[in-house]
């Protein structure tokens, strides 16, 4: 463990009765593959289930993005960005899909960003796992995503979050090297040991990089348990949830709630009362003048790191193991992943300008969801894995993906000879 840094005076005064809640929402949609058969290899180069992708994006926009953006805008306007701000990470593929299928959703995010109450985070463009395989591809995609945020939002992200909060030492040094000042990670005991996630930390591998850790019990109370009638705390009321925050140790000042944005209206339907719960909880919390909802960059301005964290092995926010086995756990996933990145050298000779289709597919095939669909862990986490999964079985997901890869490889090889 790294040595604990001594607190120093900060630019902003921190008071001990102050309490900061950092909300970050992940917005991501993959380009799901259509049933791509052996007979299609070499014949058809259109891999995506256009209808499925369009219908899902439009449904999610209607049920989640638009109503939740409206609610957040209302709260930001009512309380001012100083007291209520939130952070988003929106993957490049989700932004593409909004442009293609639900432009009103993109406008709504742009509108929300214009309030000044939103921080946009950097991630890999395709919401992929490149960091585990290729530093070059990882850096390229982070850059591509930042360019996209600049273009669509005029935003320059300073905080980085990796796909599924995958975090490890090497990653921290790359991210710091790229000029990011903060990174998000899972508040798992494998990373923290006995320590609390409710503080700011730094990365042992890159001491300038601040780490914000997800408080997973409180995050998952909303994201997974909110509408579960078998949960002893069901139904979760705004008052009860606010009380849990008040009963946290007084010196724990920074509570990070990270979750998928689709939690609101999609994973938890509007009928469960998730929207009114959220609003009532924020209002309840903000009755206390010392409470603020802040973003990661604001957290850096207020808080000092209290320790360093090491992660020699990659961690994630998924499932009970908090490891990578949801994406790279079985042989099918490993085979698909290795076969995919075996193609990377073929891409390097092809410019995106001359081969836009190949580069588009290269990105879309890297999206982590493709590997998630091949997961064979059907225990407690199975419910989550089945969500939005277009396949009947992980075997079908693997077979389809490998057929697509066979065609994609042929196209790459042919392009080399042109």
């Amino acid at each position, binding site marked *: 463990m790294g040595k604990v840094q001594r607190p120093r005076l900060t630019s902003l005064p921190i008071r001990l009765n102050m309490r900061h809640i950092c909300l970050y929402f992940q917005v991501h949609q993959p380009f799901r593959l259509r049933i791509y*058969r*052996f007979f299609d290899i070499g014949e058809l180069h259109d891999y995506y289930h256009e209808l499925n992708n369009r219908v899902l994006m439009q449904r999610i926009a209607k049920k989640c993005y638009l109503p939740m953006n409206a609610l957040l805008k209302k709260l930001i306007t009512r309380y001012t960005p100083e007291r209520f701000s939130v952070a988003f990470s929106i993957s490049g593929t989700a932004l593409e899909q909004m442009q293609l299928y639900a432009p009103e959703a993109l406008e709504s995010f742009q509108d929300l960003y214009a309030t000044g109450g939103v921080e946009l985070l950097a991630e890999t463009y395709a919401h992929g796992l490149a960091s585990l395989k290729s530093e070059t591809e990882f850096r390229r995609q982070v850059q591509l995503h930042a360019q996209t945020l600049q273009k669509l939002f005029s935003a320059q992200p300073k905080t980085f979050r990796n796909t599924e909060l995958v975090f490890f030492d090497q990653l921290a040094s790359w991210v710091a090297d790229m000029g990011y000042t903060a990174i998000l990670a899972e508040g798992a005991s494998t990373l923290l040991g006995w320590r609390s996630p409710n503080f700011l930390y730094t990365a042992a591998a890159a001491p300038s990089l601040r780490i914000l850790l997800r408080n997973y019990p409180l995050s998952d109370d909303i994201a997974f348990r909110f509408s579960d009638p078998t949960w002893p705390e069901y139904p979760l009321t705004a008052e009860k949830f606010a009380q849990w925050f008040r009963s946290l140790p007084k010196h724990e000042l920074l509570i990070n709630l990270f979750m998928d944005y689709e939690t609101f209206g999609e994973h938890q339907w509007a009928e469960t009362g998730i929207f009114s719960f959220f609003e009532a909880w924020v209002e309840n919390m903000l009755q206390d003048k010392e409470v603020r909802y802040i973003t990661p960059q604001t957290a850096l301005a207020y808080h000092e790191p209290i320790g360093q964290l090491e992660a020699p092995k990659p961690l994630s926010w998924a499932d009970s193991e908090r490891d990578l086995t949801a994406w790279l756990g*079985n042989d099918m996933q490993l*085979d698909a992943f*290795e076969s995919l990145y075996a193609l990377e050298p073929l891409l390097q000779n092809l410019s995106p300008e001359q081969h836009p289709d190949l580069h588009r597919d290269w990105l879309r095939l890297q999206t982590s969801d493709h590997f998630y669909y091949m997961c064979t862990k059907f225990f407690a986490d199975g419910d989550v894995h089945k969500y939005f999964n277009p396949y009947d079985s992980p*075997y079908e997901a693997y077979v389809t993906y490998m057929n697509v*890869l066979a065609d994609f490889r042929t196209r790459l090889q042919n392009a080399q000879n042109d």
Partner: protein
Amino acid sequence: MKVLMLGWEFPPRIAGGLGVACYGLVKGLVHHGVSVTFVMPLRSGQEPPNSYRLLGANEIETPAEETPATTFWKQVRFYGVETYLGPYLEQLERPILTFLAVPETLPETTTSAPLRLFFTGKYGADLLDEVYRYAYAVSFLAQREEFDLIHAHDWLTYLAGIALKRLTGKPLVVHIHATEYDRSGENPNPIIRDIEAQGFAEADLVIAVSFYTRSIVIEKYGVPPEKVWAIHNAVLPKDRQPVERPPHKRKVVTFLGRVTYQKGPEYFVEAAARLAPKVPEAHFVVAGTGDKLRSIIHRVAELRLGSRFSFTGFLPPAEVERLFDLSDVYVMPSVSEPFGISALEALRAGVPVIISKQSGVAEVLRYALKVDFWDVERLADLIYGVLQYPAITQFFRKFAQEELSQLQWERSSARVLQAYQSVLT
């Protein structure tokens, strides 16, 4: 001569070689002037009009009043056991075991109106139940149909054949396309095995699709040798020209069949593992489904060969032809293959074949590469040879076509007709 033929599959409702063989045989018999009524669980409704008659068991009215058939069924005891008919299941997922109870299997004869029974015609989890229902419904043809002889294909229809024989006294010929030992090795499902044995015992004559199968019938079921005839399957003449292949550098190695113990898919995969590094342009196709598909996919992933394999699932006949058009070699590594009609279909499409020595088709093909199913090293060698040396392909194409022209259904059905005549006199 009028034959009442009982079968589970008939084009376009086919799952494998059984339906293809029944179709060829019926056409051949019609050619020889035999009148055939073919009774299957249900018709697809897509069959073209033809010179034979097709009837679905779901179209047969089972009467409300007491008939000789209903009396007969009262004396029959059914097996009521938990069973799992592994090799037939079409789904990837193993279903929950079904309990087969007699009262649910057969309708109460006290119902006031005539009844038509429900059939799927598939090899589902309730297969045995459906086999009983089929026998029950078909037995009412005893009084309604005119025929000289009953011809039943595989255990699925043997109970129906036995019932008809007992009710009419007409001779029964049973045809065996695959025994339970072929499908399940040394651990046969006892119910299916018993039905097969009873069919052989009550039949006046047994037709086996090869000498290989004939010997199994004699050795494993104790059937007197003089009662078992081996009559090889054949192949219908080519009714289409192969489609011109698109220019691919890829070389396609094809496995086609149910992905079950019997068909030896794992030997295909192990041979592929030896071949893949040496022939980078080789692509392996597994066409079919079955209870071993998942473990086969796992093994391919474990070998990191997923990008070299395609799994197509079950293919309808038109797509089988398309697959042959794309294939450079067809591999049939069956552990125990009574005949293996698909090897003839591959040859008909001009695809060289590598077949296991444990197959009936090996008896009739001289111009095919033959290998013991377990010898994956040798299998890999042979595939390599076919892919790398075009002369082999040309040689086999030329001579195999000549051989194929001898394997006609007119010939095979002439022998079947002789078999009929032997039991009618």
